C-alpha cells in the first residue's frame, strides 16, 4: 500500500497557538504523510462547515517524523484562517497533501542565502533543517528574515546558520526591508553566494529578482496564487514564466508581457517553487 497525497485525510490538531498577534503555530497529526514531504511543499487545509469550500494552501514549516506531525505557521487574514485559528487540540481537520514540488535540495551546497519574508518564512525552516541534515559542514546558511513588526521563528533558524533580521517598523534588527538590509550590510558577502532560496510577499520577491540579476545570483522562489484545487485540475493558479531569460525579456512585467513572451505554469503543481529568474511579476 503506498501513500497517496490526493486522499483527503482526517487529522487531529495537536496544538494551535497564537505565537505573535494574528500568527498561529499549528501542529497536525498527519500520520503516514510525514514520510513523503519535501521542504517547500504545502498542504491543503479545509475549513469545516461547507460555506468555505476552497482549500487553504499552507506551507509545511516542519516535519516531525517520529510524532507523525507537521507544523504550519499561518496568518489570520480572512474568514478561513480565522476559523482555522479557533481549532483546538484534538479537533479534527481535513488535510490533503503533500502538494506541489518543493525546493531543489541538490542545489543547496556551498554558501547558501535564504531570504524569507513574513509568513513566507515557515517553509524555509524545514528547508534549512534538511540542508543541514544532508550537507552538514558542506553548507553554510546565511538567513535573512524580514517582518513587518513582530518576529517569529527566528531563534529556530539560528540552529542552522547566521540569521539577520529586518523589520519595517525597526522594532527589531535592521529597520527596512530585506533587500535594503542585504545591500547595506551583507554586500561584501554577496559574491560568495552559490545559491538562493526565498519565499515571501510578491513585492519582496520582485525586488529580489532584480537584485539577483544585478548580482548574478541563481536560486529559486516559492510563490503564491489563488487556488481552486491545489493539485493541478482547475488551471486556476497559474503564473507567467518567461519563455527565455535574456536581457530583453528580463524587464517584462505581467502588464507588459505579450503572448509569445511567456507560458503559464501552475503554482500548485509545477511549483510553488520556481527558478528565480523565470518568473514574471
Amino acid at each position, binding site marked *: 500500500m503506498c501513500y497517496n497525497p490526493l*486522499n483527503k485525510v482526517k487529522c487531529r490538531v495537536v496544538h494551535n497557538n497564537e505565537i505573535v498577534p494574528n500568527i498561529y503555530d499549528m501542529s497536525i497529526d498527519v500520520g503516514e504523510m510525514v514520510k513523503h514531504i519535501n521542504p517547500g511543499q504545502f498542504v491543503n487545509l479545509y475549513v469545516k462547515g461547507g460555506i468555505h469550500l476552497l482549500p487553504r494552501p499552507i506551507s509545511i514549516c516542519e516535519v516531525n517524523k517520529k510524532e507523525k506531525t507537521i507544523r504550519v505557521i499561518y496568518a489570520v487574514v480572512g474568514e478561513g484562517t480565522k476559523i482555522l485559528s479557533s481549532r483546538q487540540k484534538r479537533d479534527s481537520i481535513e488535510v490533503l497533501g503533500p502538494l506541489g514540488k518543493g525546493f531543489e535540495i541538490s542545489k543547496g551546497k556551498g554558501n547558501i542565502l535564504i531570504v524569507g519574508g513574513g509568513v513566507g518564512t515557515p517553509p524555509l525552516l524545514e528547508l534549512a533543517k534538511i540542508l543541514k541534515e544532508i550537507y552538514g559542514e558542506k553548507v553554510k546558511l546565511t538567513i535573512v528574515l524580514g517582518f513587518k513588526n513582530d518576529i517569529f521563528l527566528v531563534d529556530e533558524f539560528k540552529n542552522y546558520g547566521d540569521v539577520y533580521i529586518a523589520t519595517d517598523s525597526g522594532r527589531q534588527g535592521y529597520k527596512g526591508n530585506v533587500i535594503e538590509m542585504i545591500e547595506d550590510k551583507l554586500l561584501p558577502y554577496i559574491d560568495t553566494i552559490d545559491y538562493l532560496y526565498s519565499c515571501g510577499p510578491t513585492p519582496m520577491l520582485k525586488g529580489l529578482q532584480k537584485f539577483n540579476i544585478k548580482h548574478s545570483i541563481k536560486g529559486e522562489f516559492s510563490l503564491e496564487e489563488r487556488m481552486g484545487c491545489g493539485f493541478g*485540475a482547475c488551471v486556476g*493558479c*497559474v503564473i507567467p514564466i518567461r519563455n527565455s531569460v535574456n536581457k530583453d525579456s528580463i524587464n517584462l512585467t505581467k502588464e507588459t508581457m505579450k503572448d509569445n513572451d511567456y507560458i*503559464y505554469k501552475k503554482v500548485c503543481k509545477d511549483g510553488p517553487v520556481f527558478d528565480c529568474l523565470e518568473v514574471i511579476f
Partner: protein
Amino acid sequence: MNLGVEFCGVQFKNPVFTASGTFNSGREFADVIDLNQIGAVIVKGVSNKPWKGNVTPRIAETYGGMLNAVGLQNPGIDVFIREDIPFLRQYDTKIIVNIVGRTVDEYVEVALKLANADVDMLELNISCPNIKEGGVAFGVDPNMAELVTREVKKVAKQPLIVKLSPNVTDITKIAKAVERGGADGISLINTLIGMKIDIHKRKTVLGRKTGGLSGPIIKPVAIRMVYQVRQVTKLPIIGVGGIMTGEDAIEFMMAGASAISVGTANLLNPRATMKVLDGIENYMKTYNLLDINKIVGIIE
C-alpha cells in the same frame, strides 16, 4: 443492479461523468481513483489553437461556491489528440471532448480534427464569447446556438452534445434551437455569471472581474433547467451543476437527466466521483431500485 446507461447510442457503464474543466483529461486523478470506474471523462475545453486563458486571480471563493475565470486555457486540439487521447484510452471509460471556440470556424476546426480521432462523443461548449458578435456568448442567442450546432454537426463523426449556458431568459428556447441544429443531446448547466469585490482592496477579486459561479449552491437553478428542458425535447440530458453526492445525482436524474457530470466537487475532493457513485448505489439499494434508468424524469 443496473447502473449502465445508453446515451445518444453510446453505452456507458454508469451515469457518472466528469464535468469539463474540473478534471482536465484525468491525469491528475488517475493515481487516486480508478478511471475505469467512471462512466465518461468529459475533458477540459479544447480549442483549435492553444489558448492562454485569462489573467490572474482566476479563482474566488463565494458563499458555498466558487467563481472561476480560467478563460479556457488549453494547449489546443493537436496536443490533445497527441497526448490525452492515448492516455485516456488506457482506461475502460468513454471520452467526451468539450469543444470551445471564438468563431463558428474555430469550433468546426476542432470537430474536424476529431472526426478521425478515437473519441466517443463531442460536447459543444457554447458559453464562449462569439468574437464576431461583439463577445456575446453563442449560447445566449437561439440563432447563434442553432448555427454553431448545425455547422459542427455537419463535420462531426461522433454524437454531438451541446452544453447550454444558464445565463438566459428562456432555456427551453435555446434547447429547441440546438435540437433544430441537430444536437444529439444536451448538457445543462454551465456556470452562472457572478462577481465578487474585495471591499478592503476596493477591487474585484478576479482579474477578469466577472467569472463563472459553480458548486452546490447552483444546484436549484440547474435542477429547474433540466426539468424545464425535459418538458420541451426528447433529447437526452446530461445534468451538471453542484453535484456533490449520490443524492444530488439522483435528484438530477429524477428531474430528467439520463447521466450526470461532477464538476466543482472534483476540485474539492479528488475522489468526488467515487463518492457520488457510491451514493447512487446506496440509494438504489435502499429503495430496491434495480435499474437506474427507471428514475430518469419521473417528476411530472
